[in-house]
């Protein structure tokens, strides 16, 4: 039979098994260390995104190796490539299907600003249709640059008032 533990004071039996922290810190720790990406690979930048997933650069070191092709299981959309106007509505739909909390990395010049494609066919920056958290410069960015973006995003998420947001939601 299990009885309720009414003991409030120090208990030497659970020493080392209990950690005191803030809810924000715990929630953000969970979020930052398992940020599953939605690989929105649309052009050449997606090749570098694949390199980041490979053994040499190994995005698994940051807990983000689980590329989810279902937006409902993903936390962070990595827009890697040129977003055409034809594709833009689909990018927005997929973003809408991701469950909150969700973040976006715009990888490369194209996703950030339209890049060199100053033309009738290309969306001039994916931030016109979805909110972007981190922009990565480069054409294409080095894999290290994407890892840096991921770390920047983790730093940003760590500062979020997660608990109060959850309670007010």
């Amino acid at each position, binding site marked *: 039979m299990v009885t309720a533990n009414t003991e409030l004071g120090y208990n030497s039996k659970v020493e080392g098994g209990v950690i005191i922290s803030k809810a924000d810190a715990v929630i953000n720790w969970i979020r930052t260390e398992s940020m599953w990406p939605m690989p929105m690979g649309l052009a050449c930048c997606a090749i570098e995104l694949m390199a980041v997933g490979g053994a040499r650069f190994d995005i698994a070191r940051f807990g983000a190796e689980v590329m989810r092709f279902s937006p409902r299981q993903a936390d962070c959309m990595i827009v890697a490539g040129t977003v055409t*106007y*034809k594709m*833009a*509505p689909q990018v*927005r*739909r997929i973003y809408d299907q991701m469950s909150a909390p969700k973040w976006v990395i715009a990888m490369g010049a194209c996703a950030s600003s*339209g890049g*060199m*494609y*100053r*033309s*009738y*066919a*290309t*969306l*001039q920056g994916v*931030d*016109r*249709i*979805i*909110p*972007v958290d981190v922009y990565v410069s480069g054409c294409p960015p080095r894999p290290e640059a994407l890892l840096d973006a991921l770390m920047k995003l983790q730093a940003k998420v760590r500062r979020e008032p997660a608990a109060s947001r959850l309670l007010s939601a």
Partner: protein
Amino acid sequence: MSAAAVTALKAQFPQATDRASADHLAVNVPLGDLVLALKYLRDARGFDLLMDMTAIDWAEGASPRFTVVYHLLATSEPGTALRIAANCAGPDAAPTAPSVVGLWAGANWHERECFDMFGITFIGHPDLRRILMWDGYPYHPLRKEFPLAGIETDLPVADIEEVTGTRVIAAPMAGGPFVASTGEVNLTDAEPRAKDESWSDRQPQPGQTELRQMKD
């Protein structure tokens, strides 16, 4: 081998004429002879591969305005290529040409692209839809009067446009289009750059939509 084919083609189709070309031989044929001429070349002269099919816009006011061009290759004789060109029929705004999907199935997507980019209707095409731009896009971007930056119009999906407040805009050209300088020995000088640098993102060209500021 192409030369013999051209001679034979001209004997078969007396209205065919030589066409100036920088590399492979090229022949003009009247639009009415086009399909028969291509069929003859395919069946009797061994030009079994349609490598490419494209069109030329001779600019507004030119008559005829559009020309379709077929790039043929004889795979049994390597390097034997031939180009066939024909001026389109119909008014400038709605040119037409016969479809050759019956001769080469691969012409299907080429003709769709030509239709998408130039607005040439291929009569007899089984499924003439846009292939690069979305259905409902109002322009044909490779026509000479269409600006590279594009023309402001609606996004392909109405509810996304409503939610995001974003439209298809004329792209900010930042002094572009960017043109490479040919004949430069120094590669840095040969890099593509804007020839007209009198305006930029901060000083927009008159008539262009200004770049929207970044969202918070």
